[in-house]
């Protein structure tokens, strides 16, 4: 009899203590959920189409509320929804410019040196399984098997001669291609930015030269010649700051490797 009472007592007390501690802890460690998130979720189309590049409408609403995503990503809702979201988030976000995808690689077939002739499944991730490197000698090169093409819901990407290209007129800037690229080279750039170095190679000049006849060798010529100081060479790779670039195109003329290109 005592053991029954004792066990009831022990479990009751233990449960009571844990329950009390949890209730207490939930007060102390309370994290507020942004009320804006719920409001944004209300006005979205609610189709969970994934066109925004986030996992469902809830994921996108959370990202918008945190200020990580622009207001105009809801493809299904269109301009009307974008206006409502912008209203909830305040007018300042309206100024956010439309972004488009860009693949900084020019290493098409015959230009980039090959590591091996890949004949496996036509999937970039599969090609990466060979020691984490891919078919091209340059470890920063586009593999060209089209994971981004498959991920694009808007038909804005295609493979041209072994390198992925973006059709800027179709791209909505959802970033789905950015997420699937196993090389992490695809990036989003402002639509107005027309001049970009089409290379991602961060190896030293001599090494880059051996791998690809159109790779950035980090010669710094563009950085010196740029009249507006928009180009910096970091890790042997030219990078353009869209905020400073005036789209004059001078860098494209002086680049000895002809990798700074003017986008259509």
């Amino acid at each position, binding site marked *: 009899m005592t*053991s029954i009472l*004792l066990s009831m007592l*022990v*479990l009751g007390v*233990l449960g009571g203590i844990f329950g009390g501690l949890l209730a207490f*802890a939930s007060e102390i460690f309370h994290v507020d959920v942004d009320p804006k998130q719920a409001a944004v979720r209300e006005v979205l189309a609610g189709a969970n189409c994934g066109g925004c590049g986030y996992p469902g409408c809830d994921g996108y609403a959370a990202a918008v509320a945190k200020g990580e995503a622009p207001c105009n990503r809801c493809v299904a809702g269109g301009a009307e929804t974008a206006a409502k979201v912008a209203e909830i988030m305040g007018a300042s976000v309206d100024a956010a410019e439309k972004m488009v995808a860009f693949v900084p690689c020019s290493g098409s077939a015959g230009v980039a040196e090959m590591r091996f002739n890949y004949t496996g499944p036509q*999937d970039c991730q*599969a090609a990466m*399984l060979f020691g984490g490197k891919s078919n091209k000698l340059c470890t920063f090169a586009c593999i060209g098997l089209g994971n981004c093409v498959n991920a694009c819901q808007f038909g804005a990407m295609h493979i041209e001669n072994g390198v992925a290209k973006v059709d800027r007129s179709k791209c909505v800037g959802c970033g789905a291609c950015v997420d699937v690229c196993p090389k992490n080279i695809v990036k989003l750039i402002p639509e107005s930015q027309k001049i970009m170095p089409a290379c991602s190679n961060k190896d030293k000049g001599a090494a880059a030269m051996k791998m690809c006849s159109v790779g950035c060798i980090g010669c710094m010529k563009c950085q010196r010649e740029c009249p507006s100081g928009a180009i910096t060479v970091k890790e042997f790779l030219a990078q353009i700051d869209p905020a400073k670039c005036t789209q004059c195109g001078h860098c494209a003329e002086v680049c000895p490797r002809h990798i700074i290109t003017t986008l259509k």
Partner: protein
Amino acid sequence: MLSSIIQISLGAILINNFIFSQFLGCCPFLGCSNKVDTAVGMGLAVVFVMGLASAICWVINEYILVALHLEFLQTLAFILVIAALVQFVEMFLKKMVPSLYSALGIFLPLITTNCAVLGVVLLNVQNNYNFIESLVYGITGGIGFLLAIVLFASVRERVEFAEYPECFRGFSICLVSAALVALAFMGFSGMAIPV
């Protein structure tokens, strides 16, 4: 002391691996091994919770259950401790270490139902481990789980691109490859570490 710790560690990680020779925690092992990244997240969360649960359950067992001669309540009391502990750790991480919280994500609450965690605390009692030994057994048991799930996730990532008969597609090939990986771990069985 040191030799017994080494013995426990190697035993928990390789010889008596929780998944491959004790068949505990198979549900998350099959459920969270689609990608190496998620497998690492799940594995680390298990290491964390198993270590913590071992330590706390040892204290509860020694100073409450054994002291009051209520050993038959072990399973029930330990489940209570684990469930409360996971809830608490989740709240704590969400507030204090949001980066770790978002990295572990959904895996943390899922661990409540991971039988490897209950298994480790019950085995601690069964083997008469002291506090340090329990803690070591909990952490290394978690590491064994981490090793197993990461190995299996890498196998699955490759199997996804392999060409195998249509009838094996989906979960069947997953179970077949799990069996083959477990078979490899059979190589360790029966090994003894000299003390």
